[in-house]
């Protein structure tokens, strides 16, 4: 994101993957309850947190995202029974690998948020933004094939 010359404040770019059944609905509830969180968060709707392929996250970092958060249904509540369990295990592994590559753990997060938890969604996003902000701009993950 280009920085505004006058306003030196760093604004992170955050991609949030939200599952259609719980957390996307939770985000809608945060909206209808007018519980604000920074505009830095952009949500992508996926059917299930288990749909989030690690490639999407790598892509986001590669393209300059400063933080990525995956939100799903609470354990045991997954609309598809088990998708969030897979997501949880997959992301634990991916995040530790990302940390090894220099992308701090604070820039990645998995959170459970139900359709009724608008307040939690907003709070989570605020916290996450603060955290990513404190870490500063992300070092770009470069894919040599994508270099132009």
């Amino acid at each position, binding site marked *: 994101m280009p920085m505004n010359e006058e306003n030196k404040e760093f604004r992170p770019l955050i991609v949030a993957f939200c599952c259609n059944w719980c957390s996307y609905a939770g*985000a809608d509830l*945060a*909206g209808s309850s007018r519980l604000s969180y920074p505009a830095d968060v952009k949500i992508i709707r996926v059917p299930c947190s288990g*749909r989030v392929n690690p490639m999407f996250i790598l892509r986001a970092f590669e393209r300059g995202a400063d933080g990525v958060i995956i939100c799903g249904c609470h354990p045991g509540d997954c609309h598809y029974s088990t*998708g969030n369990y897979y997501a949880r295990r997959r992301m634990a592994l991916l995040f530790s690998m990302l940390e090894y590559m220099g992308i701090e753990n604070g820039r990645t997060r998995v959170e459970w948020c139900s359709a009724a938890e608008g307040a939690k969604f907003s709070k989570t996003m605020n916290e996450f933004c603060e955290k990513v902000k404190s870490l500063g701009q992300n070092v770009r993950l470069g894919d040599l094939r994508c270099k132009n």
Partner: protein
Amino acid sequence: MQKIGVFVCHCGTNIAATVDVKKVVELVRYEPGVVFADDYMYMCSEAGQEKIIEAIKEYGLTGLVICSCSPRMHEKTFRACAEKAGLNPYMVEVANIREQCSWIHKDKEEATKKAVILARAAIAKVNLNAPLKEGESPVTKRALVIGGGIAGIQTALDIADAGYEVDIVEKEPSIGGRMSQFDKTFPTLDCASCILTPKMVEVNQHPNITLYTYSEVEKVSGYVGNFDVDIRKKARSIIFDKCTGCGECMTKCPLGKIGNIPSEFDRGLKNRPAIYMPFAQAVPAVPVIDRENCTYFKTGKCGVCSKLCPSKAIDYEQQDEIVTVKYGAIVVATGFDIINLDKFGEYAYNESPDVITSIELERLMNAAGPTGGHLERMSDHKQPKDIVFIQCVGSRCDSEEKGKPYCSKVCCMYTAKHAMLIKDHWPDTNITVFYIDVRTPGKNFDEFYRRAVEQYHVNYIKGQVGKVKPQPDGSLLVQAADLLDGKQINMKADMVVLAAAIEPNPGVRKIATMLTASIDNNNFLTEAHAKLRPVESPTAGIFLSGMAQGPKDIPETVSQAGAAAVKVIGLLAKDSLKTNPCTAQCDTLLCNGCSTCANVCPYGAITYDDVQVMDHGLRETRRVAQVNNALCQGCGACTSACPSGAMDLQGFSNRQITTEVDAICR
């Protein structure tokens, strides 16, 4: 290249107050693929929709992006609108600029910027959308209920009354299940047989219900609306149509007196002949020959029943028969049993005949039971004066080998029932109940338990019993502690009744595997959603009824049975099923047949097939995954698990999501 129209909604001031709608229109106009962009006060209104339809026709639009409220609100509306104009409804994407933008941001410049980014992401996605067609699969208008207890009976009756055909498969010779073994029911104390038997008869006479008793489900294939089920009808050794149920054979079977074959129905408290009906009110009233024990089958000699049968209904040559039937829906109502108590040696269940389980007590209290309803000790046939009840035997137990981690839910109530029934018949009996917690949530339940204490003076003591010690004088010494009074108790009893933990019928594992219905660690069937879809299995077309899903009492079972029936009726009422087109697809050229996807699929929608593929000019046979679109629910678990990238999800494809990421990160 798509021709995309972008429509930005003001939603009155809901959006327009924080997002500069006009600016959004200007900025997205030059996005790749966009040929038209406009804004309107209320996009979802009739006039708004009209605007969309006109634009589709005028500009030959192939894709739509609506920047408005949440897709959870109006995606359906706009898809229908597109369809009206002849556009495939799956060519529509919604950018959520209300709930996820205008409503949560205050700074107009910031909100406008975000709205543009969200619109760009949606536009990028639509560029990759492809028309999708909802599939159709026909529905066989017949249901199968597995299990003929109260849960299965009620479900079958409700479905049959709605006009659909139902088959019940019951592995025992008679329907009736556990409830038929009970004496009275809580909290009203009406007699179990009096309320169950009429329902059993109704099932038998219902024109829409077919009974397969002494039968088991052998094989299941197919999917929702189209199951093929093989049912094994075990050989009864009786010609069904000839038998009049007169019972002559059973009374004359020589093994009735000397056979020592324990009656399953009476929980081994009584013996039965080798040709038998489990109980007098059995439905159907046709006996069965227990070939394992029958002298004729063991030695080829005897044949008494065959000689005496007035209707010549005995057929020793009968074979098991397999019938294959098509069903649209399947209900699992396999019920429960109590756990094996071998691991609870401290309670002397195997050591003393006077230590019994609650189900055995039901039989001992039942007028049709082994003692004609007279409560007596099995050791000396004396009427017990002091009776001790032990709660939670194996329930709430951390050790997997010994018990179950859950509360069995019904024991507190049936124990209060037993205590009161005994006191009603024999008021000078002393009854002590050792409990950990008394749990009585339910209508009129706590009142019921309090009645046992206040009116019947049943002695409730908090503290689990440590050991039951059979004494030389034939009594039982119960060693316990009263935790509230702080003293150890050594109490003599004539009879000890154990509230053994409930577990799902052990046969359910096999059935769940056949149905690809998931079960939990305790072998209870899993619901599609614990709160919102409690009577459906995650596998489409499979429904749950009764204890197979979790511990519950009779009224709860009946309500759940009705709920399951409604879900079945809702399914059978359709002539065909529309299938969600956002399903997974396998690229056979990339698939390496590793089975990873099938392992994560919660619906059993993935199978494997050998296909011929051309790879670099070579013809090869490969084992590749195939997705059954009728079963796939579109969760995408397989797509993230697939190591070779062969699995993709229509409507949320890898490329579509990646391009959204790119658009956001631009």
